[in-house]
């Protein structure tokens, strides 16, 4: 019977299935850069490079005060074209235009760091890898392609910082079918240098990702700080209720 056959095949395959790779580009771990200066740098990069096309419509500019930036600094450095500090981070680009220009409407980035988490890594890991794996590809309308999201609609916005890179592909025998060959990624090739070194670029992306993670849940630090006190209080509460219960139950024989 079909079911029994499938069962036997499954049991035989179990070890192999457990080890099977889920596929997709392996994500790099996003470095933790929690200092305020890093987050401020991330905010600056975000406003300058991302906010032209993407919106963060749940985020107010003046929430950046949580990162130690003053209203005056926001007005002077981060606001363009008459926005008020209490405004939400919206974009002037209309969705219909975006669709025509890029083929897709750029997603809102308010909670993108939470949305992109998966079993492969945190949302931060995803964004950190995604933003660092753009490469030049003349077959694409924008001239750019990406390792994490193949055939992505978004161009490499920070190419001047990173420089132009291409990918090296090696031909390899298909391990399952030796008559075929597969293309395997074998690293990037720097074609023209950027204004930043590779390390500087990675650090800046880490700052930007740190900012995106902060923006996805601005209350996160407050939550964890408060959590410690709540836990301590609860421990005391548990101790007292335990003693109270014990004192009553002493008399139950």
């Amino acid at each position, binding site marked *: *019977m079909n079911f029994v056959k499938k069962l036997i095949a499954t049991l035989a395959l179990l070890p192999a299935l457990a080890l099977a790779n889920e596929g997709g580009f392996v994500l790099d771990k996003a470095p933790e850069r929690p200092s305020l200066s890093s987050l401020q740098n991330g905010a600056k990069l975000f406003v300058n490079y991302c906010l032209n096309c993407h919106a963060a419509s749940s985020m107010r500019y003046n929430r950046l005060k949580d990162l130690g930036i003053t209203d005056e600094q926001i007005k002077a450095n981060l606001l363009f074209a008459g926005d008020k500090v209490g405004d939400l981070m919206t974009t002037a680009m209309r969705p219909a235009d975006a669709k025509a220009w890029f083929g897709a409407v750029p997603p809102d980035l308010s909670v993108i760091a939470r949305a992109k988490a998966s079993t492969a890594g945190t949302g931060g890991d995803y964004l950190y890898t995604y933003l660092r794996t753009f490469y030049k590809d003349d077959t694409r309308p924008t001239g750019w392609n990406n390792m994490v999201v193949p055939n992505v609609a978004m161009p490499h916005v920070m190419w001047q910082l990173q420089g132009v890179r291409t990918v090296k592909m090696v031909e390899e025998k298909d391990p399952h079918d030796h008559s075929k060959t597969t293309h395997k990624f074998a690293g990037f090739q720097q074609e023209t240098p950027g204004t930043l070194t590779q390390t500087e670029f990675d650090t800046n992306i880490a700052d930007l990702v740190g900012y995106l993670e902060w923006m996805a849940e601005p209350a996160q630090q407050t939550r964890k700080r408060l959590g410690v006190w709540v836990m301590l209080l609860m421990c005391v509460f548990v101790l007292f209720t335990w003693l109270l*219960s014990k004192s009553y139950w002493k008399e139950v024989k």
Partner: protein
Amino acid sequence: MAAFKETKFPANAPASQKAVGWIDDRFPLSKLWNDQWGKYYAPKNFNFWYIFGILATFILVLQIVTGIFLTMHYKPDANLAFGSVEYIMREVPWGWLVRYMHSTGASAFFIVIYLHMTRGLLYGSYRKPRELLWLFGFAIFLALMAEAFFGYLLPWGQMSYWGAQVIVNLFGAIPLIGPDLSLWIRGDYVVSDATLNRFFAFHVIAIPLVILGLVAAHLIALHEVGSNNPDGIEIKDNLGPDGHPVDGVPSHPYYTVHDLFGVSVFLLVFSAVIFFAPEMGGYFLEYNNFIPADSLKTPTHIAPTWYFTPFYSVLRATTADFMYVLMGVVAAYVAFLWLKSRLSFLTKIIVAIIGIVVIIGMLPSVLDAKFWGVVLFGSSVVIIALLPWLDHSPVRSIRYRPTWHKYVLVVFGLAFITLGYLGTQPPSPAGGVISQICTLLYFGFFLLMPWWSAMGHFKPVPKRVTFHPH
């Protein structure tokens, strides 16, 4: 109807006594308190498993209170819903805390309810005379599933949207009326603003009212028949000279302080999740649900929230080629009932006719596997209600049952958890076969219970409860 009689108090009686007396003459306040809690004698040998009832009540209150505050800021509108949740998370003072309490509370509710039901299974709490108590509890479980399902659409994320789409489409598998029925539920051809609005109405008022009513019925029934206990014996069989059970203690103050301790431990764990892991690795708040609902983009993997996945796995396990296994199982079960049950001849004839109709219905040319998947999905939930009549064990508690009954329970529990885990994962060939085996184990546990529960060597049941003074 007796004439109204005002209770007379001496002039120097405390004001509080006079006030309570004044109320008692007009409303049975003291009587209610004493019947339901104050002088309600509960067995003194309750263990860890007996905390989940009060915890469920506590979470119910927590969900209602946090829900009220969320409703003040949430917008049940397809264009505004997603943004309004983020507004609560960012702009509303302490909104993030209230939202996390509500989202974590939903999962906590199910954890506590599943443990509460496990307790019933361990100690035979559903056995006579507590059948109706069990049925009320089962109805609360159903209402809670509806409540969670309706509530899960409200954040209007991708998982909200597509989860609702998938579940509502299940009704479409019902022959004849199915497609119209799912259209009627949605109020549109796809899940849309109309669906969101009605789900909001069900979530914030209709179902909570039902739950509150059922909880009241559940508690009244419990305090009428009295609590079971880990030994599965009736404490009312041993009354003391004062007319109260010798193995019982009044709930107040003993279980008041005991439950307060339980609630405090729960709050400790609950706070740890809220403050340090509110997403719980994508199980309590799914990552995909941080993407706004998009009716044009179907996610690659759609799964309901973890508390539905055991039943959802049963649905997914019912594939076209599994139908032949099921046909064999139905035939075998009918044959088994003919040979091994003491049902009347007429009943056996009826069972055989139903069996033949079901087997014919399972033929691929008659009704498709999707229909039977929905039937099994529904049955896997409803079968829990039948426990009082399926369990034929001469003793209630697992303590005095044959040791191998414990292993049966463990296998059942593992099958349930495996189904739950597989339901959260994308479908795979291996997972499919494992979930099919677990589906058979799950139903086998219930359908064969009238026989296995009466088999083996039972231990003598004590006359008095097992209790070690603290």
